[in-house]
């Protein structure tokens, strides 16, 4: 099945192209856009991006597979990025990761069968002063404890299920993380 960008996405791509001297430079932003639109980047999306920017599909493939944030396979909508690098490791980052693995019954790198969560063991996410931490969408969850993690997971699942109820059967809801969360005060 050939994919198409939505009208809004096409307009955004037009605008993007005015910001760079050549089309290739818009590749990363267009890939982000495609992933937002289709959820992941299967071959059809890869070809669509290549056609849109007049690039060889092989080049686009090389770029997608180089960067960790582009997904070739469908994954859970709430991506939990848990840091286990040194600052977090020293303050229990692995305990948090293993706690989540236990709670969700999946390993890092896997998605829950219902498609609600995707768990990733991440490298340093630049919030070391508030270790251990994780990111979900554009929301930072800082100074984590297992109890805090449970609250976050319960809340995300509840909101996700509420969204799912309003959708036609078989259709998974979008991620629920759009609000800018509370942040550490100085």
């Amino acid at each position, binding site marked *: 099945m050939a994919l198409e960008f939505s009208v809004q996405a096409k307009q955004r791509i037009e605008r993007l192209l005015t*910001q760079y001297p050549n089309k290739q*430079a818009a590749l990363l932003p267009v890939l*982000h856009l495609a992933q937002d639109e289709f959820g992941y980047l299967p071959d059809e999306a890869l070809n669509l991006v290549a056609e849109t920017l007049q690039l060889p599909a092989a080049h686009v493939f090389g770029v997608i597979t180089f960067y960790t944030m582009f997904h070739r396979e469908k994954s859970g909508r709430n991506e939990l990025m848990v840091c286990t690098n040194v*600052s977090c490791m020293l303050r229990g980052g692995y305990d948090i990761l293993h706690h989540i693995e236990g709670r969700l019954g999946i390993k890092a790198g896997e998605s829950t069968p219902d498609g609600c969560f995707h768990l990733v063991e991440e*490298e*340093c996410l*630049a919030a*070391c*002063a508030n270790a251990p931490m994780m990111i979900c969408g554009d929301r*930072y969850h800082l100074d984590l404890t297992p109890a805090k993690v449970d609250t976050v997971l319960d809340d995300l699942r509840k909101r996700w299920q509420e969204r799912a109820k309003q959708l036609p059967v078989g259709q998974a809801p979008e991620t629920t993380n759009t609000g800018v969360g509370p942040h550490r005060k100085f």
Partner: protein
Amino acid sequence: MVEEAKGVKIVTRNFGVPDSHKLATYRARGGWEAFKKATAMAPTDIVEEVKKSNLRGRGGAGFPTGLKWSFVPKEARTVYLVVNADESEPGTCKDRELLAYDPHLLIEGMAIASYAIRCQHAYIYIRGEMMREAKIVQAAIDEAYAAGLLGASVPVPGGGTFRFDVTLHRGAGAYICGEETALLNSLEGKRGWPRLKPPFPAVKGLFQQATVVNNVETLMNIPAIIDKGSAWFAGLGMGKSGGTRIVCVSGHVAKPGVFELPMGITFKELIYDVCGGIPGGRKFKGLIPGGTSMPPLDASEIDVPIEFDALTSDARIKDVEVKAGVPFDMGNGRRLKTMAGSGGIVVFDETTDVVALCARIMRFYAHESCGQCTPCREGTGWLARVCTRLAVGQGHAGDVDLMGTVANGIAGNTICALGEAAAWPMMGFLTKFRADFEAKLAASTATTMTAPARQVAS
């Protein structure tokens, strides 16, 4: 410590102010006044002023910023300014907070820098994972456009106009894109592979044009330098390093955080006076002084100031060794102590399994090696595997020296500094905490897998 610098806040001056990320707040607190002052000056005078301020790059290498700007050829037609906001050095969390709290200070710094180097279009390369910050910075850029501070005809004193556009560009998850030439390749829509230098970006950078790549914090110092003068800025600092320094302290301290401090403060004062010491009354064991790519310091070396040159040359810091008694040669007989790096300070106490910690660092660099150069691609994997097997109590005889040899084989033999970023801390940990590694090796026949080691291995 320079007394005048105590309590001085330059880049964090708007932290804690409500709505500090909004243009109205920024302007009410004196924002964009420095730009007016700068555009009344000749561009070359601004470069001179920045040179005299002793401002050094805050991304890690500490290269003098004014000097970098002066490398842009006079005959260059198109000049680009690229802001490196791809903060991903483990232990570093300053740029993320700076972007979230004061994006307009960055934009003003960029505008002044662009006027000085005759750049008309600047790009901010922000790390892909920082979605929240990307939204905040984009909103700030939109506000600045709406207010006429950016765009096709920004008015400057004397009646002229200045064309200046800013584009925010999101990365997609690759540590190597913090390396400036890899960043440029990534910005051009390619894989983030570092380029051979020379040609340096100042001559041939983004889209093959003259380019200056600066760190977020570096550019955020520029408005204050123009506003208060290079003498004031240089006077705050120490030796050849002007201004203040942002550090991010994490790990085993009572009060971790991001702090703007005088250059002359020592690590000891930082840990015990600023960060409240080590929790639980435990003893200090060591620290990583500037992101995990820098060799660590042990308890006997923390009376040294956090300043750039002190860390590379202070006699109290031991030389990093390849193996016991054989110092590492950086070329021409130069010895390696450590470096100030990105300001990410990770403190660890006496309960820490140093070998497991080192194995985690090595696993990071093995994962992030771009795969272009053989010594780094293969060597980082070796270091990660050997260090991990030692950490989990399955070391082989000779493993400790093997790691030093492999690290020595990587350093200096790669296109970019990721090779050193893995090799230096490896040799540094072996030099400072050799007893820990030897003990692991001695115990390797027994089944002595500590909990942290098991976690890293799993």
